[in-house]
């Protein structure tokens, strides 16, 4: 095996030092009743080239561009990733390091994550941002737990237009400890109905996602006001980080905690993970934050350097009283994100966001012109809902067989929206692709 360097002679020499006769004898502390009775049953080992063939064959059995045309967003977005991001992130000095517990030989990771935290703040409008969380859903769940800690209240209100998976994860995280989640309904224009908030007692948080699951841009300022009115914190979620290249940042509209998914920032979709959980807030809340933080400091000679800091919030010090159980996070994903944000720059990021909006707006308009109903009137970013009608299922399946995924059916999560589909268009969809889709769904 090419990863195991020991020669038989070396094994013998080392066994002699240890005072064991065989490798098997090294395991004598393990009682016989704890041992396996037989060898592991696994497929025979593959050579490197045989592995390539096996993996090529598996990978060939998923539908991806350019053969397939996939108009899906819903929390995972198709954006072009510059080769420089892959090359830099692939440097093994970054890739094969552990969490930077020893700062003197981890300054590369630490400075890069400090830079990530900074650009993440500039994107979300927050004063601080954590080093990363697993994904948007767990970041949101942790944000809700943080609001519960901050306010001492045990209930949270979550919009029905928060990504259904994110709401499910919030339930997984909150219910066992006895916290309650109430759902906020939505209005006919495709945004959250805040009118029920004032009647809810003891809320820790009001959670709204913008752009929301229907792609509509929410009025976060109204959400912040509603939350404030009942002594709760506005937690603003997002699944499409690129939207904030164009939209007002969540914190600038009054969100106390911002939590979302950064997959759009240079991460491949990779069948849904790893992504990047982003979480930010105001400086005043910093000691309640879950997760790792990198801070700037100086070394004993006065030179600038970076360390993991405020660790007294964390599990390895605080154990069961920690602000979170997270340890390994998604640091390498944050590294990719800072590289991607820097590759585009402020100017490029803005242009890309505008282009995404234009593509989706074009598709939305073209579908409307072809006679399809667009049920929600609120402005969108790069995805939106179309009502193709309840008979559309067969067409959707036929197109699917031809490698075209004409949006995500919403009925499973929103039974009242049978026949409605969530469609996404990013910069990677050409006008030709969009026109083709319109033609195919309108036949």
């Amino acid at each position, binding site marked *: 095996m090419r990863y195991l360097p020991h020669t038989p002679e070396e094994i013998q020499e080392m066994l002699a030092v240890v005072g064991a006769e065989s490798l098997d004898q090294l395991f004598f502390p393990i009682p016989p009743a704890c041992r396996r009775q037989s*060898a592991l049953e696994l497929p025979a080992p593959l050579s490197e080239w045989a592995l390539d063939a096996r993996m090529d064959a598996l990978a060939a059995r*998923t539908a991806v561009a350019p053969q397939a045309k996939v108009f899906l967003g819903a929390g995972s977005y198709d954006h072009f990733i510059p080769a420089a991001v892959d090359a830099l992130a692939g440097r093994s000095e970054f890739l094969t390091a552990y969490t930077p517990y020893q700062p003197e030989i981890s300054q590369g990771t630490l400075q890069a994550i400090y830079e990530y935290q900074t650009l993440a703040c500039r994107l979300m409008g927050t004063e601080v941002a954590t080093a990363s969380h697993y994904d948007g859903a767990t970041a949101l769940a942790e944000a809700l737990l943080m609001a519960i800690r901050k306010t001492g209240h045990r209930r949270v209100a979550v919009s029905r237009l928060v990504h259904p998976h994110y709401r499910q994860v919030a339930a997984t995280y909150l219910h066992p400890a006895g916290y309650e989640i109430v759902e906020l309904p939505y209005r006919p224009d495709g945004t959250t109905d805040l009118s029920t908030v004032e009647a809810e007692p003891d809320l820790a948080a009001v959670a709204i996602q913008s752009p929301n699951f229907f792609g509509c841009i929410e009025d976060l300022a109204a959400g912040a006001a509603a939350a404030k009115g009942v002594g709760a914190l506005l937690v603003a979620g997002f699944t499409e980080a690129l939207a904030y290249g164009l939209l007002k940042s969540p914190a600038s509209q009054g969100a106390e905690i911002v939590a979302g998914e950064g997959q759009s920032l240079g991460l491949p979709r990779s069948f*849904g993970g*790893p992504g990047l959980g982003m979480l930010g807030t105001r400086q005043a809340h910093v000691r309640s934050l879950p997760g790792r933080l990198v801070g700037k400091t100086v070394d004993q000679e006065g030179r600038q350097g970076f360390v993991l800091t405020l660790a007294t919030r964390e599990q390895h010090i605080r154990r069961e009283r920690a602000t979170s159980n997270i340890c390994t996070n998604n640091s390498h994903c944050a590294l990719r994100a800072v590289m991607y944000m820097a590759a585009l720059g402020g100017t490029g990021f803005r242009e*890309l966001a505008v282009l995404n909006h234009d593509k989706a707006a074009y598709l939305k308009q073209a579908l409307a012109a072809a006679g399809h109903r667009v049920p929600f009137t609120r402005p969108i970013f790069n995805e939106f809902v179309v009502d193709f009608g309840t008979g559309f299922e067969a067409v959707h399946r036929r197109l699917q067989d031809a490698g075209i995924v004409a949006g995500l059916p919403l009925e499973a999560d929103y039974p009242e929206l049978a026949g409605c589909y969530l469609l996404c268009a990013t910069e990677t969809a050409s006008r030709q692709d969009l026109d083709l889709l319109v033609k195919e769904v309108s036949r």
Partner: protein
Amino acid sequence: MNAPLGTTGLILDEPLLWERGRPGRRGACLPPADVPPSPLDPELCGDGPDFPDLSEVDLVRHFTRLSTWNYGVDTGFYPLGSCTMKYNPKTHERQAALKGFAAAHPLLPASLCQGALQLIWELERDLAAITGMDAVSLQPAAGAHGELAGMLVIHAHHQHQGHQRAKIIIPDTAHGTNPASAALCGYRPVAVASGPEGVLEPAAIEAVMDEETAGIMVTNPNTLGLFETHIREIAAIVHAKGGLVYADGANLNAVMGIVDMAAIGVDVIHLNLHKTFATPHGGGGPGSGPICVRRQLEPYLPVPRVVKDGDQYHLETDRPLSIGRMGSFHGHFGVMVKAYSYIRSMGADGLRRASELAVLNANYLKEKLKQDFHLAYDRPCMHECVFSDRRQAPFKVTTLDMAKRLMDYGFHPPTIYFPLVVHGAIMIEPTETESKEDLDRFVTAMRAIAEEARTEPETVKSAPRYTKVRRLDEVTAARKPCLVG
């Protein structure tokens, strides 16, 4: 050893990202705007984020220079205890980057993502085989996330039994994530001390286990690198009172093909694919922390589940007893591809051999170093061994000092000050991918440091000297946090 080997040379300076570049530069192309502009209501628009504008060359230089300040497994020996910093095969990166994996949307209809579903399903079967457990969920994103999932499974089990419990037994050697994960389910951790041999004693468990206790979280081999020899008796005590046994499988690298987790009484175990299964740690993740359970706990596993029906795979979400969803989609699929590649490259014999050599390497270092360093438990170890700074204390040289000095000798330090039960712990996990000559070089460096501690302690106490920065002011960093530039 006056001229430390391999640690001299060029160290480049590099400013912060936003101190580089000029407005209007561009490091990435945009596709042509082939649709008409459609201005958004200006009321909704912000100014766009204030990111620096860099050219591609600016970008590449910046991050390349930063990377040179890092130390990874590819740089050298990385004996970070409890972290299993084994070599990460290059072919794994190739496999995860295949377009059919990397570009796959997580909500593709099942008929369009059979390859991805098959990989998950097969990896679950492989991990079940390796642990001896019955069912696996690959949803958890890291070890601590697996712990939470496992605790939630136990919580759901007790709920279903009709009586929720309030406490959970956690040994004092446990990793901090254990009590933190248990607390997220509302469980109150009950600490038990390990016995004089460094392992749990059944009597200690018997004394605290009752019908208000949900079970025990036990790391096996434990964080002292010792196999919990009484694990079956302990499991029996816990089971007799209706509790369940949770195993933290962070240390599975010692026992692949050797120990059957089901046979030792484990009900739920999480694994760290980013440790045992050779996926790179990425400077702090992403990892993957699957949980493996016995048959009777399968109904509680997170949704969605990958199900095989004939030769077709699909996702199922309708599991009424499930703890629910753990993450946005299906877990860290990109990491799973690498772990799958590893298992399929190693095969059954290769994995067992990896464990054997991991244990050989650890025992070899233990024997070679125990003259110069105090060994917390002088017993045959598994894949790691724990020393302390007791012998260096008379010279006022601490574990931290020696860890820093190791950097000057070109090595990543071991894990230090963990487990908490060993004062000044130095926890060394060499892993199986290190050759004898690399171990010998490390021994030489450690012995030289022990000698320096006796003869020139200031050299050790003022280390490191050859790194990008020297010791950093962590106190001020925490007191006056500067987290954003």
